[in-house]
């Protein structure tokens, strides 16, 4: 399904105070790919994500979703096909009950009531939290909130999921559930994160962002093996790919 291709064409963005956030970004992501955006704090990962659904609009160059350029006029359409999961779930869950929150997007799409209900329940079932549908979002745990936030986006049945630090602040068990969930999706996934171990499991392709530019675009395996590149971009190989400090100590002694 090539019509869901995501293309950044010489995309640049500078903040109102003229500081450059993105500087000539180029990439192309095909349908069903799972792509990681990694880079140091302030490299431009979140800014780039915001361009995917037009929360920010390019200063020059173009972002295209399924060959449709992201502009003010196409926003409504783009936002139905690109679902954005924000870093702070409390920003995303603003309604009084979990169900109302998940139904918010489909309702705004003007869908019939029965369809809204079906979608909301299906989305909650996908993240395994249908039992919480009448609860108030602010009484939930961090992991539950994150999964509900994902459900709010799934209910709009997007083709693309864009996520900002989906695993941050989660305990190991909640993180493990999230990884399982992300791996089960067939959507095109674009995930910005510092959790390189999660990325090693979820994403087959990685873009390294440094100072607003894409400095590397390759398979995750190759990127994580290039220690020189990672170091240059203030990153480290994921822990699971580093040699175990305890074992290596034992080896030395042995």
């Amino acid at each position, binding site marked *: 399904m090539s019509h869901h291709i995501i293309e950044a064409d010489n995309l640049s963005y500078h903040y109102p105070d003229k500081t450059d956030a993105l500087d000539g970004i180029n990439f192309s992501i095909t349908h069903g790919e799972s792509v990681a955006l990694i880079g140091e704090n302030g490299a431009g990962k979140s800014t780039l994500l915001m361009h995917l659904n037009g*929360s920010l609009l390019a200063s020059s160059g173009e972002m295209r979703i399924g060959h449709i350029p992201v502009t003010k006029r196409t926003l409504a359409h783009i*936002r139905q096909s690109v679902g*954005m999961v924000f870093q702070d779930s409390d*920003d995303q869950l*603003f309604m*009084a009950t979990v169900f109302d929150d998940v139904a918010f*997007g489909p309702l705004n799409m003007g869908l019939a009531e029965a369809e809204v209900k079906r979608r909301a329940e299906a989305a909650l079932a996908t993240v395994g939290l249908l039992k919480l549908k009448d609860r*108030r979002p602010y009484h939930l745990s961090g992991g539950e909130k994150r999964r509900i936030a994902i459900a709010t986006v799934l209910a709009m049945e997007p083709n693309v999921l864009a996520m900002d630090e989906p695993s941050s602040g989660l305990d190991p068990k909640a993180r493990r559930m999230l990884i399982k969930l992300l791996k089960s999706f067939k959507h095109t996934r674009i995930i910005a994160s510092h959790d390189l171990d999660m990325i090693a499991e979820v994403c087959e392709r990685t873009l390294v962002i440094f100072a607003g530019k894409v400095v590397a675009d390759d398979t995750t395996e190759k990127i994580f093996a290039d220690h020189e590149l990672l170091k240059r971009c203030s990153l480290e190989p994921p822990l699971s790919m580093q040699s175990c400090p305890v074992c290596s100590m034992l080896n030395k002694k042995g």
Partner: protein
Amino acid sequence: MSKLSEIFIDISDMEKMAGRSSLVHRLDPRCKLLVTLLFTITVVSFNRYDLMALIPCFTYPLFLLIAAEIPFTYLMKKLVLASIFALMLGIVNPFFDRETMLYLGSVPISGGWVSFISIMLRFALTASAALLLLTTTGMYNISRGLEKLGVPQVFVMQLFFLSRYLFLLTDEASRLVRARAARSFGQRGLGLNSLSHLLSTLFMRSFDRAENIYIAMRCRGFNGRMRSVTKFRWGGAETIFTVSWIVFFIFFRFNGLSYVISLYHQLNIY
């Protein structure tokens, strides 16, 4: 525990009670809103020296309290806490209005004391009605009810978001206060100076959060109108509830009490 987190728990308590399902809880929020409004108007419209006329008004909050199974002590605690404001307003009356109005046995009572008691009674009536509305309906349904009654959506949304994010705001504020306390060694931070910085930080954070929420809402197709699947239904129960309370209020507002008393005397005579 800090004062702020106590308030936090308090509000969530109220929201939990709003989730119950008594007869009153199940009523359409619109009829509860209407009756509460009319009740408040009735209570404040009495003459300020007219103590006796206020007594029958207690029927309404008492009815809600019993029908909605809200614990009496719970309501009283809230009332006592809030009564400080009414007390401050009313306490000046006995000093200005010293003319004797009535005798309690042989003790002369001045007009000031009568109006003071009247203020306190009215406070107890209106505040308990408002609290009971909140505990039987919940903030979300109140705001949706207001919207359905024709209140402009801008106000309704303000109210709704205030109630939704108050939790986070108190949470953030208590974290800031704790961080300040941890570095001020028993003194009150640096007094007003640090307080003003603390408040401005809180303001900036809220501002950022508001922007993030707005972006998140826009991402899910928000275009200025809140929609919801849950529908309100105005049925027979709502009509009976509203009409009978209106009749009740009108009757006791226009000297119903003295009519009842004279009827009682007449019955005793014959």
